[in-house]
């Protein structure tokens, strides 16, 4: 089931060669290790470019975003449940 959220989160990410690779994030005091970035895309709201990712810890799918205007990461949605990647 997909749960829609809009929570600020702390993320560990690698910024390299113009690409962002989220590696882990903190959610409910738990460190979620990102095993795979499933999809990435970019959205624009005015001058704010928002990078969006769907990522997985091999258990659930998470949608996270990074705003280049506010330098803030958000957890947008979780699709919980078992997943075999």
């Amino acid at each position, binding site marked *: 089931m997909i749960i829609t959220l809009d929570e600020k989160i702390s993320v560990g990410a690698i910024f390299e060669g113009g690409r962002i690779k989220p590696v882990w994030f903190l959610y409910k005091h738990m460190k979620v290790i990102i095993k795979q970035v*499933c*999809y990435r*895309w*970019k*959205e*624009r*709201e*005015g*001058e*704010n470019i928002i990078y*969006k990712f*769907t990522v*997985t810890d091999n258990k659930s*799918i998470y949608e996270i975003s990074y705003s280049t205007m506010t330098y803030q990461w958000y957890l947008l949605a979780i*699709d919980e*449940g078992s*997943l075999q*990647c």
Partner: protein
Amino acid sequence: MLACLDMDAFFASVEEASNPKLKGKPIAVIGAKERTVVTTCSYAARRLGVKTGMSKFEALKVCPQLTLVVGNNRKYTYVSKEIMQYLTTITPDVEVYSIDEAFINLDSLDFDPESFAYIVKTHIYKKFKITCSIGVGPNKFIAKLASTVFKPDGYCFIKDNEIINFIDSFELKALWGIGSRLAKKLNNMGIFNTADLRAYGKEKLCKVFGKNGEYLYKMACGVYEELANKKKTSVKSIGHSMTLLENNPSVDRCYNYLLQVSEMVSNRARTHKLSGKTICLCVRYANFEGVAKRYTLPFFTSATHHIYDASLDLFNQIATPEKNIRQLGVTLSGLLEKTVMYSNIFDRKNWKSIYKAVDSINKKFGSSAITYASVLNCERRGALTISPAWKPSGIRYINVK
């Protein structure tokens, strides 16, 4: 030679690719959580009887295991833009036909159509984990038909000497410009396929259908003269419509939506330096009946307040609010290019400064960062659907929500 690239179940494929849990499952993409229809569905869902245009209740009835996914328009427009941009790195002769279709002129390429298809398909799959079908033929019409033959992930190349046999294998309705009404009319004339159309003859077709008769005859012979059009064509009108969420909306609520839609039209006119004279209002009711009326102003305008005033007058003339209004649309036509008109001689306010201030705020913080307070009463705000005329740039580009 022309190629037609057609993405396979585009929105559903992007959703499957971005959420591995959905891979291979029957999924349908819907517009919103509220009352809505299936925008597109995966091939697994199609095999189980789900069709585009079904209501979500109908879809769940034919396929109870169906997963409904609320569409993310910005994800689709991003993927589409990237794919179309990639095509222009191979050849500049690319016509973006819709969000998931493009025509590519292959004449200037140094490699054969099969290699082109292999390169493009590999790139799209590697980068976006989705598939496309490519049809190649001597013109757009044949290429488009060819792209539908081996879907999904198909490739079909029709050579010149195969055209007649190829088009004869399709129903009349597969031809561009032949809908169910025209097909029925042709059937009544004893024409059931393209071979019958050719046998009927060009002259007789022209007698019945006028100029369109020649077009039909040429298509039945596999002739289509229009080339891939990479040039930006000028637009004849700017329009927006919005489906209301509320049942039996009050007149005041309709006014709020009219203001919002007028502002969307005006905003696009201002952004692309256009002004127009004719305002057309369309009202659609829950029973799918509709009314429309147009009014031509005595001056050109790009301003929301003029468009809104005119559409309000038209609304009061033609709308029957008791009939449960479902959709409102406003169109500005009679366009003049390179002209932005904020006010006329009777306006007392300095509208130009107001619009310029609003536009610069919205440019920085996003569309509708600042808007009319009454628009906040609308449950739906902003462009929520991707129109078939959507393009990745220019006046037909809309930053959908």
